């Protein structure tokens, strides 16, 4: 009997993330880290530049994660989602931390 977990890995759609930090703040295990900075974008015809958040990095430490899914539930932009697969075992504990590129790669 082999089955895939419904809630196995958490994937990130980085383009949808606004660095609002709500997932980081709600995670009970403190296993999410988000780094971002603000850029000013000048637009033609606009009187002033507008501020945008630029995501520098988003990482989840799946070694600490307890897979509760609170981050997926609270994201106002649905940037996080459950993927039916499992986080692979590793020989090195630091490889359990998935950065933004790896979290994006889980999206189907």
């Amino acid at each position, binding site marked *: 009997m*082999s089955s895939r977990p419904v809630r196995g890995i958490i994937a990130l759609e980085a383009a949808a993330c606004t660095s609002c930090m709500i997932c980081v703040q709600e995670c009970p*295990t403190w296993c999410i880290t988000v780094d971002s900075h603000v850029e000013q974008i000048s637009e033609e015809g606009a009187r002033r530049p507008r501020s945008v958040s630029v995501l520098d990095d988003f990482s989840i430490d799946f*070694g600490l994660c307890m*897979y509760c899914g609170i981050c997926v539930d609270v994201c106002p932009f649905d940037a996080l989602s459950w993927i039916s697969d499992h986080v692979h075992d590793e020989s090195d*504990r630091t*490889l359990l931390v998935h950065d933004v590129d790896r979290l994006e790669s889980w999206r189907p």
Partner: protein
Amino acid sequence: MSALLRTLRVASHPDIAVQVLPLGLACCAVEVDAAVEQGLLVPESPLDGPSATAVLVVAGTVTTPLAGLLEAAWAADPPPTAVMAFGACASTGGPYWDSPTVVNGADQVVSVHRYVPGCPPRPEDLVAALVEMANA
């Protein structure tokens, strides 16, 4: 300690049999048992001669009173050849990283060769990790 060694053949990879010393410390131990209950790992009589792979599977939270037990299991006669941290607690302390009576990962006490994330991991994840270790 050697009396606790179990020889298990991997159902999905019948050419692979591993010796496992299960150290079931908390909830993750249930998933280790489930792997056998579900027939993913099939118990066998002990292999003749020394096994190339004898894995100490730490399944559950390493609390401070049990750190000594973990050390003793690693130093057993005959000693395991590798250690698997099964689940978040054994890997990093998991959700209990903040507890003063929890050791944040089996690797704070013994060498760990394989980390299996999950809270808990599924029985299939135990099999995948054992196959990985047998092939290493």
